[in-house]
């Protein structure tokens, strides 16, 4: 009966964002007709406010609140900051794109902010319930965003596939969680860790739970063999939504894995390591090989995402702090590259025209050498060619795998990523050595121009100085509740 | 009672005896509730025809009587109607889904009766004194719509189907408002048990009844009740001027009568619940000598009768709502009102105790 008022301070960013979503909804309802950019500006303001509040409320230690359902630590703060920045960049890139397609209304932005809220909840969850609810909040918003372009058959089909498979994955996850609950008698992650370490409960039940949880996670991460939805969703949904799906949620998914596998089930690393090895190898194999056969660049990038997720899992499966921080570094770099690449696709798209074929990149160098150069940097980084940051991401993950003693796995990963180089470089070849098929001008807005250039150059800059980012990731993992 | 229990124990052994005794006892109690209810339904139809008749300057049924006694003219009518209904043939249309067609009246009727299980008739007389009584009632009344939907679908008739669709949308809409109105009640009474809700209204006079602080909720509840039972002016599910007779257009004989019975017992149920929840149930209007001498059950009956009279009065006076008006009233008027009232009650409950125990609030917030 004695209940203490929870400490709201660590959750101020979430509360603020929720209030701002309501403001966006209401403001768009009231003035959306006259001022179509109002929702956009308010959303950017909301994200900026979140950055400031998260910065102001960040504490050095690990803080639990809401009866141990919410945790605020360095990992949470840093990942949340990255999510804000990513979402904000996504909104900048997609503003022109969605306004030419009649989607510039409050729904897009409020759903994007709801999804952001879901990511924040996932990142700072310390309870199975909160993890699941955050994931559902994110997923539901994403399903709706995919379906927003409702006059397109492709988008509707993609949304249905995404929804059905996503619901299945949630079911898996819940089933796994209930198994763990049955075995340990608690849903609180810290408590689960404690109970598992005492070793008093049945190992079989726990392993069954872990299997379901890993399957659920790999659905959400689109790791093979649970990747089937990703190419269809990437192809069917509008590019702005794909950019959103492909970027920030991966950060949240990393947070999810950290909380659930690394922290909650950390002492069962021997059990999930094997599963992750299979998932990682299959993802890299299927992703890299299937990407070669694609003619649609969005589909190709979907397969490339699958292979990148394989690499992220490589870092996680080594099961120690170094592995986790290398994985985090990889996710951050991946998000940086994805932002730029999809930004470029939207840059080349116009009203009534989608630049989603590989041919649309033909002769980009003739049309605009600067953007061709940016795209070159991004593709080099995706492929892992020095001096871009991509190579460091791959190297740090491989280092972690070697430390864990899986030399053969590192060799396989290197070989498969060599295959991947082919299709990234094909785009470079199309841009520099082929004749352009159109001479339509590329006229981005000022902020997009600036941000896209900065994005491309950041890939290069982090390539020269990766230490800062790496140290940041290591700090986040070290000062977290794991 | 103990004797019967012992008898069961002897007959069926120590393990089965008590359980079977419980079953037998409950069956008897159910019969004791259902039989008077059916009689009440029969005479409610008679009352309806009489009252509406007088309101329209007619006399209504006045021929059938018992044993030829002239001043009982008309009082035999319900019995005659019942006999007629039983004698008639039940026609099942070709192309109808036979099983569901027959099941539908049962599904309408069963929840209408099941809800009576938790209704307290006086402080002691209640079949099942369960904690979650109010929730149970809500659950049961929300099941009644299945009969209507299934009847409309299984009849394989366009009119019936239209009626079923209208009814489904209408009932679901009004159930929300009804539920929210009841949330206000349980916030004030701190209980879901109907007996406790009545006891929460105990005091010196009718001022203590929840009718006073929750007056808008009483209106919302009662009007939603009228809408949920598909009574005029919300009877678009039947809508005899547009879709012939709606969902039961294909039914005849006893099958039709069962729908009829369900509708009227639902009416009585809504009136009973409104009396219990808002009008103090078995409590007398003034807690002093002449009123307290009358047994509580009579007070409850009087309240129920008044509300039932309102049902009939509505039917005689109001023209039927248009369908979009029904939806507008449910979603855009009732639900916002109830939400605001919930908020208001919540705010008052959070007042400091000194304010809540001061004069006007102390009457209702214990």
């Amino acid at each position, binding site marked *: 009966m004695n*209940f203490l008022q929870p400490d709201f301070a660590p959750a101020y960013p979430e509360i603020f964002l*929720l209030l701002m979503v309501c403001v966006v909804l209401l403001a768009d309802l009231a003035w959306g007709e006259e001022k179509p950019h109002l929702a956009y500006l308010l959303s950017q303001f909301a994200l900026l406010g979140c950055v400031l509040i998260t910065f102001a409320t960040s504490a050095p230690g690990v803080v639990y609140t809401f009866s141990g359902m919410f945790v605020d630590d360095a990992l949470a703060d840093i990942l949340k900051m990255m999510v804000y920045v990513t979402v904000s960049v996504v909104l900048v890139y997609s503003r022109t794109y969605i306004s030419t397609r009649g989607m510039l209304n409050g729904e897009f932005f409020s759903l994007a902010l*709801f999804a952001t809220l879901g990511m924040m909840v996932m990142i700072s969850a310390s309870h199975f319930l909160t993890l699941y609810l955050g994931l559902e909040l994110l997923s539901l918003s994403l399903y709706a965003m995919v379906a927003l372009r409702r006059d397109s058959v492709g988008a509707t089909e993609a949304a249905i596939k995404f929804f059905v498979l996503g619901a299945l994955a949630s079911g898996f996850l819940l089933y796994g969680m209930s198994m763990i609950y049955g075995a340990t008698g608690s849903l609180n992650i810290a408590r689960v860790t404690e109970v598992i370490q005492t070793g008093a409960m049945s190992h*079989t039940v726990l392993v069954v739970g872990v299997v379901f949880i890993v399957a659920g996670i790999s659905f959400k991460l689109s790791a093979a063999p649970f990747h089937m939805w990703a190419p269809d969703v990437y192809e069917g949904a509008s590019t702005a939504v794909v950019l959103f799906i492909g970027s920030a949620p991966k950060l949240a998914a990393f947070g999810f894995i950290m909380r659930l596998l690394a922290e909650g089930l950390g002492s069962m690393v021997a059990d999930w390591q094997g599963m992750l090895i299979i998932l990682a190898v299959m993802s890299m194999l299927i992703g890299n090989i299937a990407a070669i056969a694609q003619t649609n660049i969005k589909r190709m990038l979907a397969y490339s995402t699958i292979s990148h997720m394989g690499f992220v899992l490589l870092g996680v499966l080594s099961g120690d702090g170094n592995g986790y921080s290398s994985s985090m570094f990889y996710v951050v770099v991946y998000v940086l590259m994805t932002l730029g690449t999809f930004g470029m696709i939207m840059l080349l798209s116009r009203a009534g025209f989608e630049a989603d074929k590989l041919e649309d990149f033909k002769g980009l160098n003739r049309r605009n050498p600067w953007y061709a150069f940016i795209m070159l940097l991004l593709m080099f980084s995706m492929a892992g060619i020095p001096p871009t940051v991509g190579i460091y991401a791959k190297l740090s993950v491989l280092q972690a795998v070697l430390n864990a003693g899986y030399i053969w796995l590192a060799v396989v990963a290197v070989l498969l990523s060599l295959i991947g180089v082919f299709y990234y470089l094909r785009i470079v070849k199309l841009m520099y050595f082929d004749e352009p098929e159109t001479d339509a001008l590329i006229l981005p807005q000022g902020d997009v121009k600036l941000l896209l250039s900065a994005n491309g150059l950041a890939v290069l800059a982090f390539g020269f100085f990766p230490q800062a980012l790496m140290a940041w990731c290591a700090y986040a993992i070290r000062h977290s509740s794991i | 009672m103990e004797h019967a229990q012992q008898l069961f124990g002897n007959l069926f052994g120590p393990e089965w005896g008590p359980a079977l005794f419980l079953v037998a006892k409950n069956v008897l109690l159910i019969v004791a509730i259902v039989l008077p209810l059916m009689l009440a339904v029969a005479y409610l139809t008679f009352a309806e025809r009489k009252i509406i008749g007088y309101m329209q300057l007619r006399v209504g049924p006045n021929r059938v009587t018992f044993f030829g006694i002239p001043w009982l003219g008309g009082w035999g009518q319900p019995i005659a109607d019942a006999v007629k209904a039983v004698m008639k043939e039940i026609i099942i249309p070709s192309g109808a889904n036979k099983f569901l067609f027959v099941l539908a009246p049962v599904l309408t009727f069963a929840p209408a009766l099941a809800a009576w299980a938790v209704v307290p008739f006086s402080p002691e007389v209640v079949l099942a004194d369960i904690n979650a009584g109010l*929730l149970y009632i809500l*659950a049961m009344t929300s099941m009644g719509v299945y009969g209507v939907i299934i009847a409309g679908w299984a009849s394989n008739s366009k009119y019936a189907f239209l009626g*079923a669709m209208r009814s489904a949308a209408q009932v*679901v809409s009004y*159930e929300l408002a009804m539920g929210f109105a009841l949330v206000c009640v349980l916030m004030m009474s701190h209980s879901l048990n109907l007996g406790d809700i009545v006891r929460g209204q105990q005091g010196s006079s009718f001022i203590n009844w929840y009718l006073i602080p929750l007056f808008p909720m009483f209106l919302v509840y009662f009007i939603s009740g009228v809408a949920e039972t598909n009574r005029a002016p919300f009877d678009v599910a039947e809508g005899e001027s547009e879709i012939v007779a709606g969902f039961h257009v294909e039914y005849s004989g006893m099958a039709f009568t069962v729908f009829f019975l369900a509708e009227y017992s639902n009416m009585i149920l809504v009136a009973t619940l409104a009396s219990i929840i808002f009008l103090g149930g078995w409590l007398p209007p003034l807690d002093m000598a002449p009123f307290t001498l009358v047994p509580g059950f009579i007070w409850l009956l009087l309240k129920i009768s008044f509300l039932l009279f309102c049902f009939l009065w509505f039917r005689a006076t109001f023209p039927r709502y248009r369908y979009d008006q029904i939806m507008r009233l449910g979603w855009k008027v009732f639900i916002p009102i109830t939400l605001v009232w919930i908020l208001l009650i919540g705010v008052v409950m959070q007042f400091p105790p000194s304010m809540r125990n001061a004069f006007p609030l102390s009457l209702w917030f214990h």
Partner: protein
Amino acid sequence: MSFEDIIFYFFSAVLVSSALGVITARNPVHSALLLVLAFFTSAGLWLLLEAEFLAITLVLVYVGAVMVLFLFVVMMLDINLDQLREGFWKWFPFGAFLALLMAGEMAMVLMGKQFGADEMPAPPSRGADYSNTKELGRLIYTEYVYAFELAAVILLVAIVAAIALTLRRRTGIKSPDVAQQVAVKRKDRVRMVSMPSEKKE
């Protein structure tokens, strides 16, 4: 076997067979109705477990509201069953193999001693004055308030998404303005005229 056991097995049998019926019935309306029956019987099972709040809420929310709307939609749709069943038998052996494999694996885990009655004994039953509803309410608004609020946000997202996906603002539709209708005065509609009465010739 005691009286309660018989009730349990009765409900379980109905639940399992109606759940099977949901996926095997040819007519989608029958499937939906069987799903209603399945919900109802599982509510009965919950009552046996003394979880009366959950049981009644299941009936109230799923049977009383969700399935009504579901039936509404299923009845309105004209579903082509042959198209749905196309390729069923082609994939049946594969699906059946996977299902059997899964069922076997699950049985190995669940039928073992890990989930036996010794491992997880039934909790002691509570007295009649123990109110499940009150306890749940207390927990939801104290310990689980964060999760509760999140669930509310998820519902808000569902509302926003449903409206965003279905609302089409059509122009040129003729709908009555209710405010205008209510504001009508008698003198707007009725004009009193005085006419000389006619004389009978």
